[in-house]
């Protein structure tokens, strides 16, 4: 059952238009990484980490997760095909995990590949690449789950998602430590800081927490999505 939902979601969501657009955004990261690498900067690790952090983890990864995460169950709910999954003797958790898995199978490569290439090209060395891989994976996993719930909870989930990424994580979370705790960005940023040793603003969380909390957030988000799917009235 779960595999069928996974395949269905993957085939309907992996659309050329979206992949091309996000691929272009990823290409920008690679280009800038190349620029850092080629330029005669003294501390490429610092510059590379800043690139992965500001562009990669703060904008690129969340946006990719938003586009595919929100669409995983949001699109079927909007166009009415959700009924073809819902009105079946399939546990709601299987539907959610299947759709989430499909979204993640697109978000992970689409996030990891450009960022890791950018990290490598920027000359930041093995530490940066390792940090990028771990941070990007945590980011993709958590954000995709968060936006999967958002996609099912609200209409026009893209607008709400962007609001969360740009405004909540972009400004409000910088207000102070407690506020920062409520934004995934501070955790993913801490993972990167821990691996590369570069000090990043508001990135003072220990590694186990920096990895643990996002995964918990992901689990809670999926649970909420399952409950929502169970109780909702399918359009």
């Amino acid at each position: 059952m779960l595999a069928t939902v996974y395949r269905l979601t993957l085939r309907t969501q992996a659309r050329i238009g979206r992949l091309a657009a996000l691929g272009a955004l990823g290409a920008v990261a690679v280009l800038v990484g190349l620029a850092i690498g080629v330029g005669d900067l003294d501390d490429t690790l610092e510059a590379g980490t800043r690139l992965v952090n500001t562009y990669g983890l703060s904008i690129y990864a969340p946006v990719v997760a938003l586009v595919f995460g929100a669409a995983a169950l949001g699109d079927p709910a909007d166009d009415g095909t959700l009924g073809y999954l819902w009105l079946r003797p399939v546990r709601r958790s299987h539907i959610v995990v299947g759709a989430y898995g499909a979204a993640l199978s697109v978000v992970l490569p689409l996030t990891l590949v450009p960022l890791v290439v950018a990290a490598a090209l920027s000359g930041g060395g093995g530490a940066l690449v390792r940090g990028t891989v771990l941070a990007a994976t945590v980011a993709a996993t958590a954000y995709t789950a968060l936006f999967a719930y958002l996609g099912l909870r609200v209409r026009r989930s893209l607008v709400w998602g962007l609001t969360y990424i740009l405004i909540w994580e972009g400004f409000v979370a910088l207000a102070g430590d407690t506020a920062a705790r409520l934004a995934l960005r501070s955790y993913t940023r801490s993972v990167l800081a821990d691996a590369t040793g570069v000090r990043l603003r508001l990135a003072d969380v220990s590694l186990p927490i920096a990895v643990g909390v996002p995964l918990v957030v992901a689990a809670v988000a999926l649970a909420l999505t399952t409950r929502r799917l169970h109780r909702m009235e399918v359009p």
Partner: protein
Amino acid sequence: MTWAAHPDGVVIELDHVSKWFGDVVAVSDVTFEIRPGITALLGPNGAGKSTVLRLLCGLARPSQGHVRLLGLDPRRDLSLLGRIGLVPQQEALFEPLTPLETVEAAARLLKVLAPRDTAAAALELVEVDPGDPRPVRALSKGNRQRVKVAMALVHDPDVLVLDEPLNGLDPRQRVHLIELVRSLGERPGRCVVVSSHVLDEVERFGSRILVIAQGRLAAEGDFRRIRDLMDDRPHRIRVGSADAAPLAAALLEAGVVQGVRLVDGGLEVETSEVRAFRSAVAVVARDRRLALDEVVPLDDDLDSVFRYLVGR
């Protein structure tokens, strides 16, 4: 698959069901039972018909009262969902998939044995070529509609709900689908609910109707008997005859008609004792040696019944 047979064969039961969206009452205090066979669900646009349909198959949750399908609550009992087949009104499908993949996916989710072969069989039943390599995106509206029907049949459901299934089909496809649904309705224990606005075609599905108007149940049962209950609406019947005037006089004299109008080629009568009229018309004509070559009821088809029940 045995199911907890309801005592007297009732398959779908709504008991004092109401449904609000915010402070808009979509369905208010509706109670009815549906037995095996074909039942047509009718109602003006925006009168709550589609909400009743969604309550019926568990897509929506009643604000009050309860819905029972085969004795179970569709909102709580997941296994029940494996016995319901729904053809929804909206046209969206899993666009990149081919017809066979679409129906096979449904079959898998419905835990059908040999999903691929069953899917192919279901597609052949609705005259869609299972080997068609094109994604459903490229198919005509008529063919997409038939793929939806195939998805609802692939698991031989006990409850089949079709929301305007003939939408987009051409005349031949409509005739074929009507015959298919009729044969589906004949399987013992299966209950088919069809909603449609084209009443002349609804008559061919069968004569049991359920009319929802202004969010309430307006009428239920065989529409001909419903027509006969409408004693505030005299029957209008056209009588073809060369001797229109004398026949009109004779019928008036016999007291079986309340009103007569001469029209070209005969007359139109209004009668509230329709049975009396039907017994007398041939006898009166023969006794007075008056020509009688047509007796055609003008307002006892489903269209008129619906209009009287619901029309403004």
